[in-house]
């Protein structure tokens, strides 16, 4: 199979923008590379060795994985794997890729739709379904997993604790947040304190919709999430979530240093998925969400109708960037004190990532 153009020559702080029509690289605000031409990019991750893993979803040929442009096998379901609706599980989309951390240099994790977690111990040459999660009672017996915006539940966030690479968090829409302390063998629900206001019982064991979940890179007990039902924060590794507000949205960004600092991009509500008040706005907190200030200088002031998807918002030091569903990309080099428009001509932005 063919090898797309190599990604070995990336330098510092380039921005990868995964769109529904290809992968575009920006450097110093300028487009410098176009790869995976015309292909729908669904996930990006820079591996610990600097290589770039990319997932695509092709309407004709299915979901595929690549590392530095070279194809690697995609995970597959077996014939005895049934979805929550009882149908045969067939890979529909790869939503998230991450690596195993320093302890497991050849390990990769992938989150998929239907909602499953796969692990590879050989950099993607072979994949294994994480049975402890697939067979979790909340999914099998209690039927607390269901689709949200998709027909089937899907796993869109995977966190590998940088201090303990056997500690994994995954997020399912809809089911909620799960944590494994043994590299995926066993899983605990981490949904305490969250709400599921779209269910008759808004406080079930599972059935929550965490749109995006992030772990603070050094204060590893601090987690933030943008949920369907609002913004939440945990100070004890997800054992208890504290509701900050009920603002709808899909993405969240957190500061690498200050564990009390985060940014969100509000969406009107679940039935009007347009920017809140039709204005593309970034809100910023430095006090765990007690107060929010506007951090939108430089963003359009006229009505705006597209939103930022989960994984469409990225931060690395003072650099921040986000991409919208109508193909605009905005970037800040001063931690959102001011934004610059770097493109208004892309296709739908699915995924954004800063790379070295």
């Amino acid at each position, binding site marked *: *199979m*063919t090898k797309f153009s190599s990604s070995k020559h990336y330098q510092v702080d380039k921005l990868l923008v995964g769109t529904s029509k290809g992968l575009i690289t920006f450097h110093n605000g300028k487009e410098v590379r176009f790869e995976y031409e015309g292909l729908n990019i669904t996930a990006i991750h820079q591996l610990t060795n600097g290589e770039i893993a990319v997932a695509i979803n092709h*309407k*004709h040929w*299915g979901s595929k994985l690549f590392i530095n442009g070279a194809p690697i096998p*995609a995970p*597959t379901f077996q014939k005895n794997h049934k979805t929550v609706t009882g149908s045969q599980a067939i*890979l529909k989309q790869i939503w998230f890729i991450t690596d195993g951390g320093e302890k497991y240099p050849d390990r990769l994790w992938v989150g998929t739709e239907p909602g499953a977690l796969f692990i590879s111990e050989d950099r993607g040459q072979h994949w294994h379904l994480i049975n402890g999660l697939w067979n979790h009672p909340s999914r099998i017996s209690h039927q607390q997993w269901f689709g949200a915006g998709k027909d089937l539940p899907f796993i869109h966030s995977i966190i590998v604790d940088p201090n303990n690479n056997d500690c994994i968090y995954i997020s399912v829409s809809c089911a909620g947040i799960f944590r494994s302390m043994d590299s995926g063998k066993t899983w605990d629900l981490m949904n305490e304190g969250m709400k599921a206001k779209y269910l008759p019982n808004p406080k079930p064991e599972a059935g929550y919709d965490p749109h995006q979940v992030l772990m603070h890179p050094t204060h590893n007990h601090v987690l933030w999430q943008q949920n369907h039902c609002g913004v939440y924060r945990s100070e004890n590794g997800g054992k208890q979530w504290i509701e900050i507000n009920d603002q709808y949205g899909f993405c969240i960004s957190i500061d690498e240093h200050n564990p009390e600092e985060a940014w969100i991009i509000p969406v009107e509500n679940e039935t009007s998925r347009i920017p809140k008040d039709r204005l593309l706005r970034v809100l910023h907190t430095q006090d765990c969400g007690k107060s929010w200030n506007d951090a939108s200088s430089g963003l359009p002031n006229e009505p705006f109708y597209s939103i930022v998807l989960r994984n469409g918002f990225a931060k690395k030091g003072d650099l921040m960037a986000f991409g919208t569903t109508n193909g605009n990309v905005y970037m800040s080099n001063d931690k959102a004190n001011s934004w610059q428009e770097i493109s208004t001509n892309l296709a739908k932005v699915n995924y954004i990532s800063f790379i070295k």
Partner: protein
Amino acid sequence: MIKVHFTSALKRFFPNLQTIEVEASDVSTALLQVEEKYPGMKSYLMDETEQLRPHVNIFIGEDIATLENEVSANDEIFIFQALSGG
């Protein structure tokens, strides 16, 4: 021998792709030989349950075919993607 022709849309993933000849009694076994010649091709044409992907069309001559359709000497198999926009 049976000739198997491929849509040019697959060449971006398999740059050496060209029409090949196989010996097979049905479409399914023909595709097994396609996989031998072009490893990985099977996952492009079929899902993990070994069903043809919904937007992949296979023809024997001018007739649309299924994986179960029998083929005989001098038949020609054409592998195309369905037309779809977006």
